[in-house]
């Protein structure tokens, strides 16, 4: 189906199913129960899962396939956000033109940066992309203020022309919509004491994310993808055989830049403002973290990593001391305080510490990320079940 073999079709269907049922899956605990704060089924967070999933999938096309480690991908995310917001200001609040412009602008931007940066490889490529991203970040704060609105960030205003859906007589700021369907609107369903929220914005992002995933699946399985893997394996040998690898790497760079722009456009569509801090190099570092944590070069890894980090950022950071006290209330007082003192630095505001430790652990012990962890587990069980099989002959994650 859709040019995929049976295994991939099954995989894609599973992904589609998981994505569409996310509002159920992320709401496993009853309202008001002690575990309720681990529920992640609220629209804002689910949108972020989908959007950063797209961002990481795109980054993975570059880093996972070609091995080029870009430390400047946030620049494309930021460019996408800015262009989408400009479209909302000038044309209409419909998200489609905004997203299309975001993809085009970030693609062109990536073409420019990639054309220059890909002349070098290894650490030099990382530094070049980093330098470009920092340049765009600094410029967005200073000289480009007429376009980016500097530190305040680009926002909608009542004076915007908005040619298509006319501003003029409105008195409040309009909301982004998809042909009249407001992004913020959602339906609620109460069932078994749980409240499931079905948000238009989330489903919009989710469908685009599925398309993005499908595209990356096709790229992974295509001759083009094979060529990119060959570049990762041994670029020198490719060059010796008389093949110019530059167009392939450049294409990968532009595609991943467009993915980042798409994510930026979606971010702006969900919440129509854009700030320069989206372009900072720490934001680029975040997508690197996501991809590595999930498993670079695998299909599902980056999405898992993105979900994992966003979940941590939103849920783990909310665990404060009083929550901890309520958890360990059954323990004797001294022990309770002792455990809380130990746990305290790692949760709440300190979640970055946990993330950093986790990330180091993954890089040291699990170069294939969470996906490799899963594969190791499944291999362990398979070996136990079928000892007759020649075990250990499983292809490693690539």
């Amino acid at each position, binding site marked *: 189906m859709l040019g995929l073999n049976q295994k991939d079709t099954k995989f894609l269907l599973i992904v589609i199913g998981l994505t569409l049922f996310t509002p159920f899956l992320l709401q496993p605990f009853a309202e008001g129960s002690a575990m309720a704060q681990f529920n992640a089924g609220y629209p804002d967070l689910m949108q972020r899962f989908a959007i950063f999933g797209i961002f990481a999938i795109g980054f993975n096309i570059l880093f996972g396939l070609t091995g080029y480690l870009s430390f400047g991908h946030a620049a494309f995310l930021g460019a996408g956000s800015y262009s989408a917001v400009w479209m909302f200001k000038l044309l209409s609040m419909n998200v489609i033109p905004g997203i299309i412009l975001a993809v085009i602008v970030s693609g062109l931007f990536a073409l420019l940066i990639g054309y220059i940066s890909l002349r070098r490889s290894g*650490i030099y490529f990382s530094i*070049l992309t980093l330098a470009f991203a920092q340049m765009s970040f600094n410029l967005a704060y200073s000289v480009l203020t007429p376009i980016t609105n500097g530190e305040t960030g680009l926002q909608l205003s009542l004076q915007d022309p908005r040619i298509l859906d006319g501003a003029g007589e409105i008195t409040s700021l309009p909301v982004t919509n998809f042909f009249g369907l407001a992004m913020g609107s959602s339906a609620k369903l109460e069932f078994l004491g749980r409240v499931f929220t079905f948000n238009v914005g989330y489903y919009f992002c989710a469908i685009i994310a599925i398309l993005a995933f499908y595209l990356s699946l096709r790229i992974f399985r295509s001759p083009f993808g094979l060529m990119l893997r060959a570049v990762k394996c041994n670029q020198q040998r490719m060059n010796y055989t008389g093949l110019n690898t530059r167009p392939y790497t450049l294409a990968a760079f532009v595609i991943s830049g467009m993915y980042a722009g798409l994510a930026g456009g979606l971010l702006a569509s969900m919440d129509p403002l854009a700030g320069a801090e989206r372009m900072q190099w720490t934001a680029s570092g975040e997508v690197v973290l996501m991809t590595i944590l999930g498993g670079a070069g695998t299909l599902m890894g980056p999405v898992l990593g993105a979900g994992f980090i966003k979940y941590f950022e939103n849920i783990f950071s909310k665990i404060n001391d009083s929550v901890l006290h309520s958890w360990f209330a059954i323990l004797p007082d001294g022990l309770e305080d002792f455990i809380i003192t130990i746990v305290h630095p790692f949760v709440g505001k300190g979640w970055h*510490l946990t993330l*950093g430790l986790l990330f*180091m652990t993954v890089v040291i012990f699990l170069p294939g990320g969470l996906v490799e962890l899963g594969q190791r587990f499944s291999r362990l069980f398979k070996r136990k079940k079928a000892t007759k099989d020649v075990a250990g002959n499983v292809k490693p994650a690539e």
Partner: protein
Amino acid sequence: MDAILLQILNGLDKGSAYALIALGLTLIFGTLGVVNFAHGALFMLGAFCAVTLQRVLLIGSKSIDPTKTDFLGKPLVVETPYVESWFGPETGAVIIDWSVPLAILFAIPIMIGVGFVIERGLIKHFYKRPHADQILVTFGLAIVLQEVIKFYYGANPIPTPAPAAFTGSFDFGAVLGFDPNAIIYPYWRMVYFGFSLIIIASVFAFLQFTTFGMVVRAGMADRETVGLLGINIDKRFTIMFGIAAAVAGLAGVMYTPINSPNYHMGMDFLVLSFVVVVVGGMGSLPGAVLAGFMLGILESFASMNEIKSIVPGIDQIIIYLIAIIILLTRPRGLMGRKGVMEE
């Protein structure tokens, strides 16, 4: 003329910090072949050594001063630092006042120790892994270090003043025959510049004139052959990592009066110092120093109003622009050896 001189002076202190951090970075790269993204965090740790010493010195015994009252009318609780009660009020006050320079003594062993632990515990296992893995694991380490500092010291910048003797400014203008007040330069920045020159000179002297340094230089040129001669080069490289960490730490200690340290100061410097290393040439020590001072001075020139009016925004991007131009036209950097990291 005086404006140009002022910009050169302004560039020197930032350039010194860049040069010191870049020196350590390139030392690590040249010896161990490891790209250390945690180096900015080491700079930050050094700065927090100064903060810690200041806090330790201020710990004291509380006593009630019956002659004074606080705003509620209760007797005022006066905290006398132990240092003052041990050494007498005058000497004690001087010690507290000089806490930043004193922190140098305190920071050297700590930073060398931290360097040892990082090298033996983590980086040792990454010699044979690709550069991307080294970047990632040290990036993770940098996050962990900065979060630990944030946990203990909070997220706000902590002011750590320079000794009172260095708080004023020196009027270069009057001395050199320009208008008075045309070129004013804080004393502490002069101290910082002088200090960084001393550190740089001593690192070079150490490498150039000691047997240990000779072995290290030989190891940088050809690690395998030095190993074949029966020298334990790994051990020496570990020590060099400690020294590089100490250099970054000292740069941080002395930088605290210029900018109050906060937990992300390392990350702020990291990107720029990487650019410095690459511009100077990976693994080239003189290149790192030269590029550090050069970029610091160019950055301050670019922030002159005359230049900004011609090319708006140039002050924000000049360093990156130069890095891009150099990387594209001369990939081994200004003074890099031919064939090292030249892909």
